[in-house]
């Protein structure tokens, strides 16, 4: 249940925040919700060590994509002087 609340909070955060950094925080919440579920299943079922290894890899990969997403956000800020994601209209149809 804790994992579900974290996951849903992360999704709502990603959907509503106009600040680009706020969207990144939502992504972190989503990944943490999944991690809590993995470790809980690792403890209470026969998943044992595999769940903890999976969550280790999730932590590592989440840190990597947070770095890349931050680089993209910095580039966006350099080009537009704002971090508001609603201002990104150059690819608008």
């Amino acid at each position, binding site marked *: 249940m804790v994992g579900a609340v974290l996951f849903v909070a*992360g999704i709502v955060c990603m959907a509503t925040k106009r600040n680009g950094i706020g969207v990144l925080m939502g992504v972190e919440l989503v990944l943490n919700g999944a991690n809590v579920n993995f470790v809980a299943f690792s403890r209470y*079922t026969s998943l044992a060590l595999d769940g903890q290894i999976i969550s280790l890899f999730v932590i590592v990969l989440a840190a990597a994509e947070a770095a890349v997403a931050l680089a993209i956000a910095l580039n966006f800020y350099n080009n537009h002087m704002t971090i508001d994601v609603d201002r990104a209209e150059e690819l608008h149809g």
Partner: protein
Amino acid sequence: MNGGQLLFYLLATTACVGAVAVVVSQNVVRMAFWLIIALGSTAGLFFLLHADFVGATQLLIYVGGTVVLLIFGVMLTASGPYVQIRTAPAELVLAGGIGTLFLLMIASTVYQVDWEDATRRLAEHAPIDHPQTAYNDAAEGNTVRPLGLALLGTRPDRDLGSDSEGLSTGYLLPFEIASVHLLVVLIGAAYLARAKRRVTPNETP
């Protein structure tokens, strides 16, 4: 209700409250603070679930690395003090409603599963024994050595003392892939975020 359950409820409450506060906060620095609270509570939950190395890694990398990175990003992309980025209230209500519906759907799925029966049937197929592979017992933290050996490709928690012929799968290949992935990410992010000439509002790009 013993101490363990009380600690679980406390940590679970702070994690959920922190996560909801991240969504509700208007200021991005306050969001970062509540994110630290939420991530620290999940690290506490990991320690409670006998995953000591994962909990320590969570504190090190998430709280001590990723959140610091996010705060650097906030600092480098700071807008003026009177500029408030707000979402329209209609969008907030719609997103909140959809989120609540999604949470209710997940909750109903979770509470409909018969966990006792599923655990019993799983235990018949693959027994839940966590063999002693380290010096301490589980509550004092003994996952570092099995995790390290599994990342090297050996699985002594499965293979020692079992009767089967073959060896269980290790995690050497994902480990190598993850290290190459981190190298690529480092180079890519450093190239993307290199110092460029900033476009000021007076110039035309």
